[in-house]
């Protein structure tokens, strides 16, 4: 799945309808959605190319966002590992107490 692309001399991002919208229209919710996607699955981001984007405003936005998302993509595995281990001991401890109770015949 492509999250950011360069086309027709402009930068585009994947919107919540599954289509692409120009990067200068991106909102906070859009950005957080892209962040979730890039951390959760295999995605693609067209690398920034100043030559390929004529619009200077697009250049600036695309460069910044693509770098940010690129950094996150590089750390995806780290994020997955860290998330899975997050408070794991406490989580297991309290989940086990509750689930044992549910399993026991007289619980």
């Amino acid at each position, binding site marked *: 799945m492509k999250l950011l692309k360069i086309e027709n001399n402009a930068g585009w991002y994947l919107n919540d309808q599954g289509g692409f919208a120009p990067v200068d229209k991106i909102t906070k919710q859009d950005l957080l959605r892209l*962040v979730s996607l890039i951390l959760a699955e295999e995605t693609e981001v067209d690398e920034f190319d100043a030559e390929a984007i004529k619009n200077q405003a697009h250049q600036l936005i695309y460069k910044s966002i693509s770098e940010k998302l690129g950094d996150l993509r590089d750390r995806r595995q780290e994020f997955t590992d860290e998330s899975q281990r997050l408070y794991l001991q406490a989580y297991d401890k309290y989940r086990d107490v509750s689930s044992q109770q549910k399993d026991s015949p007289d619980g």
Partner: protein
Amino acid sequence: MKKIDLHVHTVPTLSDSPFTFDLGILKRYVSEAALDAIAITNHDVFDRRQYETIAEALDIVVFPGLEVTLDCGHLLIIGNTTNLDTFDDHAREVSARITQPGDSISIDELIGIFRNLDESLVIPHYDKRPAIKRDALEPIASYVSAGEVDSTKKFIRAIKDETKPTPVLFSDVRISENMTAFPTRQTFVDCGELTLHALKTCLRDKGKVALSETHGNQLFQVLDDGQMLSTGLNVLLGERSTGKTYTLNRINASHDNVKYIKQFSLVQQDDAACAREFSEDLKRTRSQFIEEFLSGFKVVLNDVMNVDLRADERAVEDYLSTLLEAAEEVDRRDAFSNTALFDETEFPTSEDKVLIDLIDSVRQVIENVEYRAIIEKHVDVDSLKRLAVELIELLWEKKLDGKKKRVVNGLVRDIQTGLKRRTSAAQVQDVDLYKVSLNERKVERFSEIVKCLQEVAIISEESIQGFRILATKCSFEGAGELKSASGTKTAFRDAFEQYERPYAYLRMLLDKEDLSWSELYKLFTKITYKILNADGFEVSGGERSEFRLLQEIKDAQNYDMLLLDEPESSFDNMFLRSDVNRMIKEVSETMPVVVVTHNSTVGASVGADYLLYSSKEIEGNNVVYRVYAGHPTDLSLHSVDDKTINNYLITLNTLEAGQDAYNDRRRRYEALKNRK
């Protein structure tokens, strides 16, 4: 045997409450307690003139002494009566260094002042506050003759423990003009002439010290009228209104750290209130369990408290708005804002938590000794070591990389600040999207954990004295419950509305100024206790009282003496015989116990070491209350004023309602038993 009290205060100092010394009172104390020697041991002060007056007024040995305030506790130094000048000089040096509250001297200073401690008797507070720390005594260990304790329980314990010095029990009394009763804490020593040297020799031998003159450590004086008690189990009998409770009250008043279970104190009046109080009691005594159970949650909570999702959202918003603004104003760019570093974002830096955890796990497998054989059966430990080395090297590399990135980030920040000052172009505010995402995950996981905690489940099941205690967790059911769990007057109605949404609820709690953040973990799950009897049913009011009595007796281990007033008032005989008697006996093996009873199950079956009988007697126009005492097998019991009474008769009268009733009951039981 000589009776000594080498810890007597006669001068109010910085360490005392004010009092006025009275020589007449001291004379009375020495005479009534029949002392053979005392030492004047004021805090860091030796008043030579007063000492000489006292020594002249009393016809017993009076040693000069000091209670020295050391930085590691208190210590008695007792000098020789024949070398007052030297002792006075040393004491003055101590006084000069301790001139205001909080001052103290070190052991080294003490050695420096007294130079040859061999000339003195050195007795540290050993099992008595402020106690000297054991290792602090090392430099003067060879001079220590005895260790002061403050109760018969500790005295007996020290006598039995080979690693402890000879115990001495002294009064530590302030001889004040207002004194109405005298202390009973003194020590008997098997010593001929009472010289400092002879005392030092005696005190080094545990066999030469005792709590009583003729009964070794089996008896000790409990009241200032000379009344003795066993250091083990005492049973106090007597008709109604003969002063049994009065005697217990006197014992309680004249000793510190006494566990006193009063008559009817465990019987419940109002069932609902008692059940609530009982549950609160249980919660308090079991708070350590709650702490342990919630310790993992506490760590999570402390971390999540620092997560501010709203601030994260704002940071993303700021990033995007400044980015879009900068894009809009792209034509306003100048030489400063066109530099590459102007829009540069910082390098993300990782804490490498996952890698660090992984290295720890591998090391644990390598270093485990207990399961070594199984580990070696499945894994080649040498290759694990190579793995650990590689991971550690990678961590070093990452750490170095992280350090470099942090240096560059700092540099970029500095340059950006400089550029920003020179240009009107908007600068993009950076945001750490990794952290933002991780914070979201933290909140998700936190919410899952809290949901688990709020589910109803038994978290522990423990058997105590035939009862089963079930600890259950569940959710709070209203703002009122939260208020009582918080122990504050804070209103929780608004917070409780968010209770189902753990993170929102946490933010509400954090906004409440009256709440201590370190206590917030108690407000997410409610822990309740249920006690079941041996048949698995919830306890009745009576059983609750039984449980409390057993808990109270067990709690006595933290005290120096146990007084128990008529336990039979609230309990049936089977319970008393099976549980109470056994526990009382166990406690009496470590400290003096006095049980007041009319009940033959307790009185006759508990196995008393010493029997007391209180009696109200009319002598002429006066009512005299007397306590007779002796061993349970003695023919007669004796009072402190040398009256005697027949042991068999009073025991039968008190416990069995007299000989006739006893014979009658026995015949009825026999008849019942013989019926076919």
